[in-house]
């Protein structure tokens, strides 16, 4: 089960790989990382149909924002789950994300417990 994490902060990769060490080791999930919206779309488009089932994206990124990426993904790949992770947990972003079809809305600092629960739902439906 492939998950794509999108964030312009590169250390997010180290952090996520350690947080989901066990899951990755057991082979329950595999993770890939993109550092911009454009890179995320490239990765998703490289296989048809894409192998990814879930995308977690930061909202606040230079260039394409997470919300724009969300719209793009939902148009091109409606079956992929997308959840947003934002440093700004304001209503405006939340409403917009939900309207565009985001599954969940996480705020930074990330509560990894709830994130794990969300991912576990995919592993053991």
């Amino acid at each position: 089960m492939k998950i794509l994490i999108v964030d312009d902060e590169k250390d997010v990769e180290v952090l996520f790989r350690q947080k989901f060490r066990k899951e990755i080791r057991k082979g329950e999930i595999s993770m890939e990382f993109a550092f911009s919206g454009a890179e995320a779309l490239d990765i998703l488009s490289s296989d048809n149909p894409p192998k990814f089932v879930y995308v977690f994206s930061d909202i606040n990124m230079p260039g394409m924002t997470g919300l724009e990426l969300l719209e793009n993904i939902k148009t091109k790949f409606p079956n992929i789950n997308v959840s947003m992770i934002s440093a700004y947990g304001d209503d405006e972003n939340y409403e917009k994300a939900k309207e565009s079809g985001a599954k969940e809305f996480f705020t930074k600092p990330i509560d990894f417990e709830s994130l794990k629960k969300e991912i576990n739902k995919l592993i053991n439906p």
Partner: protein
Amino acid sequence: MGLENIITIVLLYYLHRNAKSANVSQQWKKYIKIAMLAAIALLVLGSANIISSWFTSILSVLLISGVAYVVLNFKEFQNTKPLFFAVIPLIGISILGDLMENIFPKAYETWDKVFDVAGFFAFIWAIVMYFTYRKQKRILEAERLVAIEKEREYEITRKIKAQLEKDVAERTEALVKKKDELEKTLSELKATQTQLIHAEKMASLGELTAGIAHEIQNPLNFVNNFSEVSSELVEEIEEELNKGDLDEVKVIFTDLKINLQKINHHGKRADSIVKGMLQHSRNNQSERELTDINALADEFLRLSYHGLRAKDKSFNANFIADFDKGLPKLNIVSQDIGRVLLNLFNNAFYACADKKTKESDDSSYKPEVKISTKKLERHIEITVSDNGQGVPAHIREKIFQPFFTTKPTGQGTGLGLSLSYDIVKAHGGDLKVESQEGEGTIFTITLPI
């Protein structure tokens, strides 16, 4: 006979006429009139032969002697003296004739002709002297008029001088007052300027607050996350040790090492942001120090971007940094150059955002801000460019003027670019703008190495 009286009348007439210009008192004028009447009376009495001729003759002689005395001895009648000298021979001959006629009538008859001839010459003398007197008098009168005119002019000059002195004193007083007022205004303006510069600094800091908060929050999140995950890893090490899987323990140890570095790195990142903020808000002039322009530009680019992003959720722009790795460190007041960069970034992002709001929703417009640094022979060049609205040609010259702003009232102090210009100039550099309306704007800073 009777000539003395005629002469007396003539003399008195001139005395009276000259009295006006010679400041003769009223008393004298009265006497002159009485003497005149007396002379006329004697003349009439003498001619009419009502009383004996020697009696009128004596009175006439007395009267003319009195007039002669007055003319010769009083200063007031000085101007009539020449006239008197003109008639002296006439008077003398007339008196002598009268005396002889009355005392020695017989002898007089014999000498009659002599007296006539003497009287004729005396008369001519009188006429000549009279004209001389007239001429002199005219000259004197003219001189007197000139003197009066001079006196008048002097008086006018004196008045003008006094007025001028008064005017000068008043003007000087007014000027001193004005000078004091101006000095006061100047010192007030200087104080206001200092306040405004500080206010502008604070305003740009205010714009930064959200960006700074975001910039600090990110590294702090990492510090928290990495320390949390590290303690989890320590527990996992225990588990793996119990299982005896030493290879896995080694892998986890490598991760732990990386995490500690990450914690340190992000802690320092937060630290430098706080330090930068404190430096920016400090009011005093800081010293020049060797500064890495690339790092400074990168820091302020991020602060500016996140600041605007936090303020306006709908705002977004791509930013590209093209730094010359071979850029030497420059000896600059880093907080001042930081302010310049921050101003240029804020303006660039603002211009992009402004254009974006004016474009239609399906437009392909991608806001983009670009920073690049380049080492030239003796200078370094920093360019901040955007693909926003551009600066219209007619305001391009004004943008560096204090208080000039295109932003709505209350949104810009209009001091940003003006202060930036001053800061760059103070570093011996230059700040220039190029712009294509509708295409974008390029600000170029050059700083000497």
